């Protein structure tokens, strides 16, 4: 009885990502951070875009569109696709962004990232000879793949194809790392790009499946 009620209570939570909008949001986030990290890594040490006002402009030029897309993609999908098909729902965390399970996953990812960053900050302080920043981005690859795994387990564990995507994500990251032997960390940008695109693609696949299985109801639905 308790389990059945808990399953029912969890339905609105799962409904949040029924159209893949949360996956797309996370995919955009990964791609945004990847672009920012890549630009910072490839720009020359004395570039105006790495210091002061220029650095801040570059930061904003990537993060503002990223957060804009993270906000607008779910909003547009819900309004134009999901609500007319299977109904409108506002979870209890109304007004906060992101809401419901997306927020929990985001906090989990941010928490793990913060722990990795703090650990690396300590290591950088102890030993300046190593390229800890590159290792930090490698840590991000792990965090994002783990984030997709957590998200799948948390909300969509019944969907086999998502576990296949997770497996492909892991194998893809390993394969990319092995393309240039001995330079696993050097391929971090390609790995992050792959993870971001896979996450985004997973959201698009969810949206396509959702549209395919849920048609617009007749106008006199109520």
């Amino acid at each position: 009885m308790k389990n059945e009620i808990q399953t029912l209570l969890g339905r609105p939570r799962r409904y949040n990502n029924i159209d893949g909008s949360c996956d797309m949001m996370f995919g955009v986030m990964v791609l945004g951070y990847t672009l920012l990290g890549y630009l910072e890594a490839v720009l020359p040490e004395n570039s105006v875009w790495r210091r002061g006002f220029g650095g801040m402009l570059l930061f904003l030029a990537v993060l503002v569109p990223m957060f804009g897309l993270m906000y607008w993609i779910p909003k547009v999908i819900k309004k134009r696709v999901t609500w007319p098909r299977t109904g409108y729902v506002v979870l209890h965390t109304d007004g906060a962004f992101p809401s419901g399970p997306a927020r929990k996953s985001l906090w989990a990812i941010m928490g793990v990232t913060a722990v990795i960053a703090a650990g690396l900050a300590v290591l950088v302080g102890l030993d300046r000879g190593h390229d800890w920043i590159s290792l930090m981005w490698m840590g991000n690859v792990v965090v994002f793949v783990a984030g997709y795994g957590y998200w799948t387990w948390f909300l969509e564990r019944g969907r086999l194809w998502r576990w296949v995507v997770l497996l492909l994500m892991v194998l893809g990251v390993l394969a990319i790392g092995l393309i240039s032997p001995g330079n696993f960390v050097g391929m971090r940008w390609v790995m992050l790009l792959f993870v971001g695109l896979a996450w985004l693609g997973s959201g698009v696949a969810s949206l396509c499946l959702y549209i395919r299985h849920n048609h617009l109801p007749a106008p006199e639905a109520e």
Partner: protein
Amino acid sequence: MNDQLRAISELDRVIHEPGRLMIFVLLGAVKECDFLYLLHETEMNKGNLSSHLSRLEEAGYVEIEKTYRGKVPQTILRLTRAGRGAFDRYLKGLKAAF
């Protein structure tokens, strides 16, 4: 009458009906939703769902708001404070009974 039997006899019959219990559980998990969402999730027919919602509205457990989304009529539903209290009491009663 022992305590367990008393707890069963004191369960709120408005909530206890399976269809309405399903509505309560779904509404309890959200801030608000529309009729279409409940129709989709409960898989009831429109008449059945409407009659259950009317019963819950009469009991003061559910608030029903008729509005429009663009030009399309929309019925927004949410549990009232009394509804949430009644649901909490119902769940406690159920635990006490079993």
